[in-house]
């Protein structure tokens, strides 16, 4: 009873199939004439994403167009899915920069730890989800592709403002 089981309280020899059919037909006709359509027509209409949506990564750049990453190695360390490949390099002035920075979007679990741990606010998870490729290799995004992304980035959860208001 608690979960709303309907019990037929009149004996079966008083129930009418024809009347029940007519009742059902009235119900379906009501839906036919006055449909409450809830389908989102996806490619044309898109649902708005939460500001905290964690999707495709994006590497932010400095004014001169170079990646902000300093190859500190924190994100490959914190990554629980082990999907970030980083080979650090150093220029003649002693500035560290990534020689290789690859994220396998297929392995990634989109936890957002890389964004949280990044001291330079370089790597971000973004508000974007439409990824399609013809091969698994296509999902390995290199530094060039990560910097080329333009979608808005995720606003991480703020303990001071837990509901994001």
């Amino acid at each position, binding site marked *: 009873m608690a979960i709303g089981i309907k019990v037929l309280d009149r004996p079966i*020899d*008083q129930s009418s199939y*024809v*009347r029940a*059919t007519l009742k*059902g037909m009235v119900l379906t006709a009501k*839906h*036919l004439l006055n*449909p409450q*359509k809830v389908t989102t027509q996806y490619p044309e209409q898109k649902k708005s994403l939460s500001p905290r949506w964690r999707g495709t990564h994006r590497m932010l750049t400095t004014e001169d167009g170079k990646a902000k990453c300093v190859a500190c190695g924190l994100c490959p360390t914190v990554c629980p899915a082990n999907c970030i490949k980083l080979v650090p390099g150093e220029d003649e002035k002693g500035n560290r920069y990534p020689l290789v920075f690859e994220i396998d979007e297929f392995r990634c679990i989109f936890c957002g730890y890389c964004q949280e741990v990044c001291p330079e606010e370089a790597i971000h998870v973004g508000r974007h989800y439409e990824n399609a490729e013809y091969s698994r290799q296509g999902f390995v995004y290199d530094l060039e592709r990560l910097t080329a992304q333009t979608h808005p980035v995720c606003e991480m959860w703020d303990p001071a403002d837990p509901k994001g208001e």
Partner: protein
Amino acid sequence: MTILGNALLQIASPQLPPPSNVVFFVATVIKIVVLFSLYMVGVALLTLAERKVSAWIQDRHGPNRVGPGGLLQPAADGLKNIMKEETYPDAANIPLFVLAPIMAFVPAMLTWCVIPFAAPLPTRWGLIDMVIAPLPIGYLFILAISSLGVYGIVLAGWSSNNKYALLGGLRASAQMVSYEIAMGMATIPVLLLAGNVALNDIVLQQAHGLWNVLGLTVAFFIFLVAAFAETNRLPFDMPEAESELVAGYHSEYSAMKFSMFFIAEYANMVTASALMVTLFFGGWDIPGQWDVAPWSVLKTFATGGFFLFKVLFFLFFYMWIRWTLPRFRYDQLMALGWKFMLPLSLSYIVVMASAILGLDAAGVARGSWAFGLSLLALNVVLVAILFLFIDRGRLISPAYSRLDKRNLDTLRAAAAESSLMREGRD
């Protein structure tokens, strides 16, 4: 052949001057071509209509990607089905396997040739009947041909060499044989009223009197249910029954052969709808001055359009029922056919035959208002009895039965005893 054709034509409508052989031949070919093209396009659009209606009933949009509003969806489906691979099961009986879809499709088309679809068209070359073959035995022809439809399904089930397909085929044959009887019986009062089996005469009788649905509602009800069962539509789609039999008789079919079964189902629906309209809703008749001579081109088109409207209504009704009712259990289906529909139709024949005989003996002229009204009055009483008393708890046997009070006590005692024993053991 031509002499025979002419003779048949004259028997069907003796009051009309028979058109010459050449005119008859040319007119028939034109009618066949026009009707066949309309029919095939209509059937294709019906598959779209079915999906649209189901979607709207379920608060969805339905197919809306191909063409404006999804209108080209049937074309896309057809193209897809032609491009797909035809698969043949290893153990299938290939000739029968190929023959079955044709056997399912052809009878549905054949039936159409005796259904009058508009008022006769007056031309320079004589009056042309708006029916492909005005057979004097029209209704018997329909009964004979429509029962052939089951062969397609049974052959498909058997030649696939698949247990589910075979079960589907067996169910189809049992179901169609059972309901064929009720269907034939239900139309006997119609034939009694018309005094003829030629469909044109049945239409004219309704045009001059009352539509049969008013005078013979119970027969219409039986015919409606039997037509649903005959066309294997929900709630009687046992032969398919995807939840039990994969896809029933067409489990093993692919590509265009599968599509043929689909087309056959819709073709059968169109034919059954047209038959219901012809037998019970006055065929092409529009009440008023539309159904009497002198004939004109306008009258032909108006009556044809009205006939189409009535058929479309029944096609919609088919879909409406399909997306409203769940499927019957198989024993319920058989019980409904043999234990309810058959006795009901037999007793209805007796009642109607005595009523017509009584009215004839009382000197009430056929087709007069008194005749129609007295039939209508009798009908109201019979419908009330059927739907207010006979329907209660007898139409469909329940999935459970109420236990006898004594049995219930025994069972409860047994349950209590066993639980006591368990406690003692622990």
